[in-house]
């Protein structure tokens, strides 16, 4: 097959086993959790018990009196080191410890420092805070008009170019309202043969990385050394330096392997708190969250999406209005970017003349929401691909055929006006239809077991504009080290980047040393997020390798080799320096072109450097007596360009799909007046081995990203997109009921079946 072609040097396109695999399975890989420094103090956080209120008092005396407690610190105490200890990538709205107000249950209010983590934990329980309770708002739609205002003052960060226009709306809970206007959507509705309008809801869920968040800060001369399980070491350095008013080079951030990230460990989380505490007590301070505390730290946006379509009698969608409400929780984190980046893809991968989008990032009194694998896309696809099937069924059209009529094809303009290139929407759709054997008769089950099938397709734009920098060092024996700030959190970026460099330099991937993020050593990278590393850092690594290669070639010529003649690098160094000595350093820096969307219309002729295309097909069975659902077959297909490493790509596809599978079927943070009622893994269930569908297929659709490194682009999220609506569509196919709220629990299916039966009885 074309897409499994291996590049000339035999490195890119080869299923190289993960470079770190042996270290990890033998328990030798080092994680921040294992790190202990001399004199280190453990921090334990005392958290708010109310969703919204003014802090009246914090009594830390009993905690401070516990033997072994070094110090108890409140938000006001932090001001001795940093006057305004607020952080965040979009707004500087989140205090390292609550100041004046608390805005969600579980918000950090005070912290106990002790040499023994158990003493710290016991003492934290003795802290007593009193509050003047304020009205709270929990629902994203209510937050649009609520008189309960989560933030009295809005503080846009102005850090990222794509969020420069961000100001928020004072005296509301709207952190960002993104809008897009294309064509005349009202006219489209007025002249439509059919108009369909539906509302869909997604629930709040958690990332659940196996390694909970952990950060350790230590004073280091006149600077600060931060060891942290972070997906964005460069951002941590910049943000800590900003808080302290220091130059970047006084802050050193080191990141080893991560035990999963999924967006939970992005931007800045625990780092500001441990940094300030370490400077305050002049000792290393470590904060290790428990699995349960992560529920209060970062989550995935709950979302309400109202979608309305104008459709012709032949089944062409001529207009679409999208209103999307994102429940950002108490702090914006990166929610505004989710609102905008995802927002402009809300109409789906369809060719629609007239489009109107309003996407709102809202503050509420829930734990904050940020990036989670898919970055808002799964919430949107859940709605627009359920909507697609509802339209198709109503018009008596086959769901695949309906999509064929409407998909965006090569060269056609997307809603923003950007022309579609290298986006195999059709390829993904047809691959799924083929693997589902869609046109063949389907066994619908018998008795109380009913079978059904469903599909969904989707796309995602890459984040832009962002920068990656790579440094390659060739040693005098010809071996190469690669210094990058991309974080290998399990996605195998070390392996993929080593493959790219090895291909450029003509070395074996296994012989490349990848230096893990250490901001004293590894250069800037925007972050490991949004499936951007393969494309952006991939290019930077390629450029760095080519830069090194060029210098070697020049050195060879200067040493008398004929231009183009073969040489061994070690011979060049020996000849030049008279011994095994010296280095060649190659540098690569990459930022793609980008056009910001016009603020009023949301239009842009270059909205993304590449599109990720993903789709899912499922076959399911429903036990109509209990509502129990079994997924029998899960087919994932994606356009990821040419795969750098086909085997790893397949595991990215299956991993992403299974993660969304849990969010689809049962994961759900349940709240009672802002209080999380199932905040432990005993009551918040994630999929286990016994939940995995018996048949899973992962397909790499024939494609090439012409602008990507070796034709490649990102893949970490693509298989999340279609899972939820594919399953809901299959449920409808099996038993004729339509669910519009996630998760798709057996009880919700059972209740829908009951309601349908009683409706039929009345009719």
């Amino acid at each position, binding site marked *: 097959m074309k897409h499994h072609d291996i590049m000339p040097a035999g490195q890119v396109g080869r299923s190289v086993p993960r470079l770190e695999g042996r270290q990890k399975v033998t328990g030798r890989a080092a994680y921040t959790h294992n790190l202990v420094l001399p004199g280190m103090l453990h921090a334990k956080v005392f958290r708010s018990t109310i969703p919204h209120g003014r802090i009246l008092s914090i009594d830390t005396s009993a905690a401070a009196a516990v033997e072994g407690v070094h110090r108890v610190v409140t938000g006001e105490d932090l001001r001795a080191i940093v006057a305004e200890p607020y952080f965040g990538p979009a707004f500087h709205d989140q205090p390292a410890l609550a100041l004046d107000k608390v805005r969600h249950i579980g918000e950090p209010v005070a912290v106990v420092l002790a040499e023994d983590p158990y003493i710290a934990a016991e003492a934290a329980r003795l802290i007593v805070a009193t509050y003047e309770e304020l009205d709270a708002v929990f629902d994203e739609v209510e937050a649009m008009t609520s008189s309960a205002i989560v933030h009295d003052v809005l503080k846009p960060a102005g850090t990222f170019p794509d969020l420069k226009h961000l100001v928020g709306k004072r005296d509301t809970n709207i952190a960002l309202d993104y809008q897009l206007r294309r064509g005349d959507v009202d006219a489209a509705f007025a002249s439509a043969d059919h108009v369909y309008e539906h509302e869909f809801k997604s629930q709040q869920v958690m990332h659940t990385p196996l390694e909970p968040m952990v950060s350790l800060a230590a004073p280091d001369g006149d600077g600060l050394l931060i060891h942290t399980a972070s997906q964005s070491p460069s951002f941590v350095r910049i943000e800590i330096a900003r808080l302290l008013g220091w130059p970047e080079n006084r802050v050193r951030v080191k990141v080893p392997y991560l035990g999963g990230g999924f967006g939970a460990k992005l931007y800045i989380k625990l780092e500001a708190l441990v940094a300030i505490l370490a400077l305050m007590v002049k000792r290393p301070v470590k904060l290790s969250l428990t699995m349960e505390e992560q529920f209060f730290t970062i989550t995935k946006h709950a979302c309400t999406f109202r979608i309305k379509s104008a459709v012709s009698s032949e089944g062409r969608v001529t207009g679409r209005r999208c209103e999307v409400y994102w429940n950002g929780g108490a702090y914006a984190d990166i929610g505004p970017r989710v609102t905008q980046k995802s927002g402009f893809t809300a109409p789906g991968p369809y060719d629609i003349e007239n489009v109107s989008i309003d996407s709102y990032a809202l503050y509420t009194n829930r734990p904050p929401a940020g990036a989670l694998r898919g970055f808002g896309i799964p919430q949107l696809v859940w709605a627009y691909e359920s909507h697609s099937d509802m339209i198709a069924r109503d018009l008596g059209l086959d769901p695949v055929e309906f999509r064929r009529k409407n998909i965006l094809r090569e060269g056609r303009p997307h809603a923003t006006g950007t022309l579609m290139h290298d986006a195999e929407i059709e390829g993904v759709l047809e691959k799924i239809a083929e693997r589902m054997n869609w046109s063949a008769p389907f066994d619908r089950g018998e008795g109380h077991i009913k079978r059904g099938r469903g599909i969904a397709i989707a796309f995602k734009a890459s984040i832009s504009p962002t920068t990656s920098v790579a440094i390659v060092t060739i040693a005098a024996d010809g071996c190469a080290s690669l210094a990058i700030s991309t974080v290998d959190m399990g996605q195998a970026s070390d392996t993929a980047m080593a493959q790219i460099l090895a291909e450029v330099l003509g070395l074996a991937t296994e012989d490349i040393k990848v230096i893990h993020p250490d901001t004293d050593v590894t250069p800037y990278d925007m972050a490991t997020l949004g499936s951007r590393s393969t494309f952006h850092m991939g290019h930077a690594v390629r450029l760095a390798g080519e830069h090194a290669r060029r210098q070697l070639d020049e050195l060879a010529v200067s040493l008398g080799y004929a231009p183009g003649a073969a040489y061994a690098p070690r011979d060049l160094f020996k000849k030049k320096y008279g011994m095994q000595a010296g280095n060649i350093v190659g540098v690569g820096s990459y930022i793609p072109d980008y056009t910001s969307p016009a603020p009023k219309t949301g239009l842009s002729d270059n909205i993304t450097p590449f599109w990720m295309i993903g789709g899912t097909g499922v076959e399911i069975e429903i036990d109509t007596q209990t509502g129990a659902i079994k997924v029998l077959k899960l087919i994932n297909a994606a356009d990821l360009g040419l795969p750098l490493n086909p085997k790893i790509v397949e595991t990215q596809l299956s991993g992403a799909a299974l993660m969304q599978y849990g969010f689809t079927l049962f994961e759900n943070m349940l709240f009672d007046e802002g209080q999380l009622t199932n905040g432990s893994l005993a009551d918040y269930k994630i999929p*286990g081995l016994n*939940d995995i569908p018996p048949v899973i297929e992962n397909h790499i659709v024939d494609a090439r990203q012409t602008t990507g490194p070796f034709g490649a682009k990102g893949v970490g999220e693509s298989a999340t997109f279609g899972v939820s609506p594919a399953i809901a569509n299959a449920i409808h196919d099996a038993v004729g009921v339509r669910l519009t709220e996630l998760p798709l629990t057996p009880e919700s299916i059972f209740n829908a079946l009951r309601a349908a039966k009683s409706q039929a009885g009345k009719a």
Partner: protein
Amino acid sequence: MRNFDIVHPSSWAEALGLLSGGDEGTRAFSGGTALMLMMKSGFYAPTRLIHLGALEARCSFIEATADGGLLIGAAATLSSVEASPVVQRSAPVIAQAMKKLANVRVRNVARVGGALAHGDPHMDLPPILAALGGEVLLCGPDGERTCPVESFYTGYLETRLSQGELITGVRLPPQAGWRSAYVKCTTRAADDWPTVGVAVSLRVVSGAIADARIMVGAATERLTRLTSAEAALRLGAPDAATFARAADAAAQEAVTVDSASGSAGYKTELLRVYVRRTLAEALLNGAVQ
């Protein structure tokens, strides 16, 4: 999790002596699979834990009794019960249920005594042992006594185990002629705690159901015997119509509770389905010889 002692008594008498102070902060433990979770979550903060490990050698027996019943020591691990030929022969339903009880790592350390003492209605073993007519064997400062498993539970995490008492084992009557099954269902992940668990045991004589015991766990606040469902079975033919009548009686009778895994109303409907299915499975399983 700090500031508590662990002591290791070497005899029953010593263990009972350590428990006799009446201190709520003193607890006996063996496998610790439930207790450790409660301690980690801050739900329980002991002052002293009494580890029964040294008593294991004397108390991990699994043996047939003279009358054809079964005696299982409190310190027997769930894995040893699962693998026991005696259990497989005289109460195969237990061995079968073990395969889907927690996971092998838990079964290797969790003990029968702890599984009975914990009192969480979601546990699998109590409904099965109750349906088989089992009795909990207890010893305390006032000597030994027994209590039927079916009436051992008084509420959520509450049992008839008195302060100062220990479970020494469980005794089952002869199972010859009885047909048994245990079926549970989960509504979230497959390895979740059950949303409903149904254990049944019935005896069919000359084409009619002579005797039946039906227990429900997980869906109710405590392990509950469904006597009106049993009455609906008695003297009926072991067929779908009788089972459906029993299932309706069960749904009528059981007081189900809301939880994160489902509403009470839904659990009642699940119970209706699962009583029927469990009875059918018991019939299919055939009688113990």
